[in-house]
């Protein structure tokens, strides 16, 4: 197995399949025309390419360039790695051909770098396999993450007719100007989405505020003081973390129905923080434990009371942690679906997630649903990308809440 003339062709063949499939999916999704990877031909072309790339070790050897160009051009004949449908525009065909040739050359040169033709050492062999897996991994993960979001955004810009006609055609006609965003204008104009956005926003902010207010003292007490039942307490926090929401939602639904809190924002604002306090408490106490006690003790020696120490020393020191916790709690509250779905019936009081659920009916066109999804996603994504460092920290500290 560990021979250059075997490893090269095998990796080449597999890589050709990966590249051809990627090219076909990318081109299909962006033009809507027919592209089909031909697995058998891919394997043949890839084997050939692999053989050439291990035989001619020079990075841009003429034979290497030749075989890449050849397999790219072969797509024009119908015997290439990708079969291109007849109605495809010249532009798309050219992009496919050149793309496959260039990407194939660069990636094969990278994968089979320093892979001799004959006997391979264990290192050379495993390095080549790892480079292949890495390339595949990047393509695979990027594709599975991007495709749903791409479909979400593009569908929201299409019309119902166009969608049914060719579900693959995501090309956007830029000439229609602002009419492109008609789903969005309709949502804001006819479906009250502006108010949902605002409700979601202030409910989330209130949740963050109340959660921090409750969990900072609690977390400090758990982290710093010794008292009876401390261990049991920190365990029960984790345990509460594990109670499924649907189990709680049922009695809460009954209680809220009986007391008239159902269908009110007040009820939602009362219930959200309680679901997030255990998470926040758990995250914060971990952070507080990591802070040096000496600073606080110095404050105590200088005559500050405990509460003053928390206010003047601990809190300023833990601002980054507070930011992470706030962001994480904001995300939970913004994305919360189950409670909003069960407790809110009145369309004037919906949160954004509840509003989007309303759009999921057969009478409302799909692009409206997707536009709603985009509206719900964009704010949290913008926040996330802007404060990515805090968020990742918050997520890792926030344990594994799903």
């Amino acid at each position, binding site marked *: 197995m560990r021979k250059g003339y075997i490893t090269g062709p095998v990796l080449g063949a597999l890589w050709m399949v990966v590249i051809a499939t990627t090219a076909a999916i990318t081109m299909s999704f962006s033009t809507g025309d027919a592209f089909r990877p031909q697995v058998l031909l891919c394997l043949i072309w890839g084997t050939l390419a692999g053989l050439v790339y291990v035989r001619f070790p020079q990075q841009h050897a003429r034979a290497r360039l030749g075989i890449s160009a050849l397999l790219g051009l072969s797509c024009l004949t119908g015997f290439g790695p990708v079969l291109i449908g007849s109605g495809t525009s010249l532009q798309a065909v050219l992009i496919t051909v050149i793309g496959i040739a260039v990407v194939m050359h660069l990636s094969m040169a990278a994968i089979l770098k320093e892979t001799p033709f004959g006997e391979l050492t264990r290192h050379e062999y495993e390095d080549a396999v790892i480079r292949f897996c890495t390339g595949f991994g990047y393509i695979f*993960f990027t594709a599975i993450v991007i495709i749903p979001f791409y479909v979400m955004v593009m569908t929201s810009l299409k019309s119902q007719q166009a969608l049914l006609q060719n579900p693959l055609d995501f090309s956007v006609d830029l000439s229609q100007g602002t009419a492109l965003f008609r789903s969005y204008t309709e949502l804001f104009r006819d479906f009250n989405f502006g108010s949902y956005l605002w409700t979601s926003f202030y409910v989330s902010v209130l949740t963050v505020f109340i959660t921090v207010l409750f969990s900072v003292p609690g977390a400090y007490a758990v982290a710093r003081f010794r008292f009876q039942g401390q261990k049991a307490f920190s365990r029960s926090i984790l345990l509460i973390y594990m109670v499924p929401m649907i*189990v709680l939602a049922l009695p809460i639904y009954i209680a809220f129905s009986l007391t008239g809190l159902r269908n009110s924002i007040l009820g939602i604002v009362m219930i959200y923080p309680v679901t997030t306090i255990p998470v926040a408490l758990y995250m914060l106490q971990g952070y507080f434990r990591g802070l040096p006690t000496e600073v606080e003790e110095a404050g105590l020696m200088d005559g500050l009371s405990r509460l003053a120490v928390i206010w003047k020393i601990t809190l300023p020191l833990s601002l980054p942690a507070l930011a992470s916790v706030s962001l994480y709690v904001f995300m939970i509250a*913004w994305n919360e679906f189950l409670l909003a779905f069960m407790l809110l019936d009145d369309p004037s009081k919906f949160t954004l997630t509840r509003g989007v659920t309303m759009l999921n009916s057969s009478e409302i066109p799909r692009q409206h649903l997707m536009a709603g999804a985009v509206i719900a996603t964009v704010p949290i994504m913008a926040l996330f990308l802007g404060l990515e460092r805090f968020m990742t920290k918050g*997520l890792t500290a926030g344990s594994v809440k799903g």
Partner: protein
Amino acid sequence: MSSATPPNGTGALAKREARLARALLAPTVISVSLVVILPLLAIIWISFKPFTLSDLRPPAPVVRESLRGSGDDLRIEYRLRNSSQEIAIGGVTLSDVLPEGVTPTGEIAAPCVLEGQDLFCDFGILDGGQRERIRIPVTVDGDPDAFEELVEGSEPGVTGSGPNVLTNFEFSLENYARVFDGSEFWGVLWVTLFYTVFGTIGALVMGLFAALLLNKSFRGQGFIRGLYLFPYVAPVIAVAFTWVTLFDPFSGSANALLVQMGLSSEPINFFGERPLALIMVTVFEIWRYFPLSFLFILARMQSIDSSMYEAADMDGASPFQKFWLLSIPQLLGILSVLFLLRFIWTFNKFDDIFLLTGGNAGTRTLTVNVYEQAFAISNIGAGAAVAVVILMCLIAFSFVFFRFISREEGL
């Protein structure tokens, strides 16, 4: 002379600290127990009761008052009925004050007494669907139309309450019998286990691969890390509906792609066929939660001492050997903690399946079953019984978890 002894018991300072600690914890403890402990007890209570969605609106007497007739034949009419068709209400009374200027004439029927202008009727028990009508012949001084408004404007007082299913002390095992009855329960359990086990393992393996990819520094690493977290950060509602749209049998892009590539001759109903739907929701679960495992595993990887790998390099270890013999043993702790936690949370997952399939096509897990029983069949008691079953499983899991975590100081 007393000799110095070490202090025993709790000192004043320690007591004060404990008191402060309790004061600081009090708000959290109170609010959390109100919203977590209380509902948990409530759900155990309800699970033993035949409680349905309609019991949320308990039966009550409903009364309408009107002034009828004309000229000499004027009468005030009270129409009383039981709002429920089946359940009897006890202690039903009606009391009203006749407005000034209205004078009753003639006799008043049996359950009612009139003292001056005060009317009081005692009906005792009102059966389900029973209606009562009381006529009081009256004369009025002045315009009957004006009095009509006066009479109908005043609300008569009614009392009476039906049996409250929630607060009485009758318990039955009917809900549990219903839940465990038949093959349905075992089907649900099997679906839950499949979903949980494969969802957890899949997310862990994918997370491990993603972490291996990103465990080196290069330009744009932060960006790609952020990108790979998207599925987890986006609202579940947005991504679930996107998946439904993407895999729609009629207008879904995935089906169009499959047909075009010749992998399938006709569109596949991904979320509507057994057993494909179950596989799809599991795949969705993996897709949505691999970022989380990825983040944790990556954090652990980056904290592994690099000198170990250097030593392995010196000894000539190959990349695979380094992975199997160094990385994996180092990651075993976090992997097992992650497995346990994710297992529990996947077991608890409700939103994803509910939004993707609504529990149809063989994807009904225990949590979806709670909703299904309580709201679709509107039998809250049965839903509560399923919830109690979930709690039992949970207690068993957390027992394992705490035994393990105290040994495995991870997280």
